[in-house]
């Protein structure tokens, strides 16, 4: 057995011997995927007009071409980014985030917490253990809430879809405004001194010392990232396909500027209405963005659309019900009101500026 250069500080094992093979296979797959990605426009044309023999300029052809182009594009992007974020996540655990945030002053803490929220693994059923873990380790309430806003709202699936369907500018705007809302909401709650509105049993909780992270080998990180792809893409792909199918229908059949009257920038009430509509809707970013893209294409204003999306993702009813276990009604209502206000401001600013 030849000794391979050791990355993780672990003894060379049998599994390690296959690592170069995995790496080579990974590179080949990545190259093929990028090649396919660059040819998608040609491919969708080929399918629509040569294979299905649809007539150019018809609603059906337009809808089919949109669908055949967008589905593989978004799925390829999703797999790539979820894999990379999966690798990043093997370095950034909630335990590490907590260690970094405990004892941080507010303001700095709010900013850090919001940034950690982007890449930290999070599902809404972890919200309560995470809240308790943070608060009982001395992370300020406002900083903890910054994290809890940012974690679901600014995530890699949302960013991929925005980048894939709207371009990098909209994705960057979403990232920056989403982080700003998370930072501002947490900071304001910190100023309001609402600690007494956390359920008392939370403060009585004895925080255990987080288990020490075992050093990971690269092969383990890659296998974690593959598992993340299976789990996340496995869960969201039906939403993506259905979402794009609905989007394709709108794309092909709804006349341009149809929505401009009631979702355009002149309708002042469009933004609050979008936020209100978003609350009871529980969807992940994957399901909502393709529909939203089609809306935008038909004359809806960007600010209204972004507000709708943020509301659907960040202000979901199930998550509020879960958070009610640790937050008393006054604090929960304040929290929701501040986040909703932040989303409104973002919506109005974009409609005014763009």
């Amino acid at each position, binding site marked *: 057995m030849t000794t391979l250069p050791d990355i993780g500080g672990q003894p060379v094992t049998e599994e390690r011997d296959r690592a170069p093979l995995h790496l080579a296979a990974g590179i080949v797959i990545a190259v093929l995927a990028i090649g396919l990605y660059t040819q998608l426009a040609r491919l969708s044309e080929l399918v629509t007009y040569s294979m299905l023999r649809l007539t150019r300029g018809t609603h059906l052809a337009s809808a089919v071409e949109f669908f055949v182009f967008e589905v593989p594009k978004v799925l390829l992007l999703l797999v790539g980014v979820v894999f990379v974020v999966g690798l990043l996540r093997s370095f950034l655990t*909630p*335990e590490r985030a907590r260690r970094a945030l405990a004892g941080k002053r507010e303001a700095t803490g709010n900013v850090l917490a919001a940034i950690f929220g982007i890449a930290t*693994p999070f599902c809404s*059923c972890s919200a309560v253990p995470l809240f308790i*873990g943070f608060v009982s380790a001395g992370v300020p309430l406002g900083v903890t809430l910054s994290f809890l806003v940012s974690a679901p709202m600014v995530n890699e699936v949302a960013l991929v879809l925005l980048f894939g369907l709207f371009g990098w500018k909209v994705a960057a705007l979403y990232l920056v405004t989403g982080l700003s809302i998370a930072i501002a909401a947490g900071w304001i709650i910190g100023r309001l001194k609402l600690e007494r509105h956390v359920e008392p049993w939370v403060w009585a909780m004895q925080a255990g010392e*987080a288990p020490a992270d075992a050093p990971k080998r690269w092969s383990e990180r890659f296998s974690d990232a593959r598992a993340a792809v299976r789990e996340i893409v496995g869960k969201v792909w039906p939403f993506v396909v259905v979402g794009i199918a609905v989007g394709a229908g709108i794309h092909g059949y709804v006349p341009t500027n149809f929505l401009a009257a009631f979702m355009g920038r002149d309708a002042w009430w469009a933004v609050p209405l979008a936020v209100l509509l978003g609350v009871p809707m529980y969807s992940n970013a994957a399901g909502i963005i393709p529909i939203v893209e089609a809306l935008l294409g038909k004359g809806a204003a960007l600010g209204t659309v972004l507000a709708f999306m943020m509301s659907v993702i960040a202000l979901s009813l199930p998550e509020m019900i879960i958070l009610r276990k640790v937050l008393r009604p006054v604090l929960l209502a304040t929290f929701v009101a501040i986040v909703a206000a932040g989303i409104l401001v973002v919506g109005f600013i974009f409609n005014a500026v763009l």
Partner: protein
Amino acid sequence: MHHIEVLGPGCTRCKETFRVVQQVVESAGIQVELVKEESYERMAALGVMSTPAVVIDGTVVVSGRIPKAAEMRELLGIS
């Protein structure tokens, strides 16, 4: 006899984790005490912040993900 706890508030990923552990234990035919722990107090006491988590004899061995069967066998010393 090992004491295994599967921690989680009852979401689908937690149920899946319980199923993986149960299957490993059953197919190996070993005697263990397997419990599903849904209390936040227990999670906080163990320092668990992301669920699902698996705890063997009081030690957190998996946190924030669904373990693979092979991994569980290794952790339980089943060859």
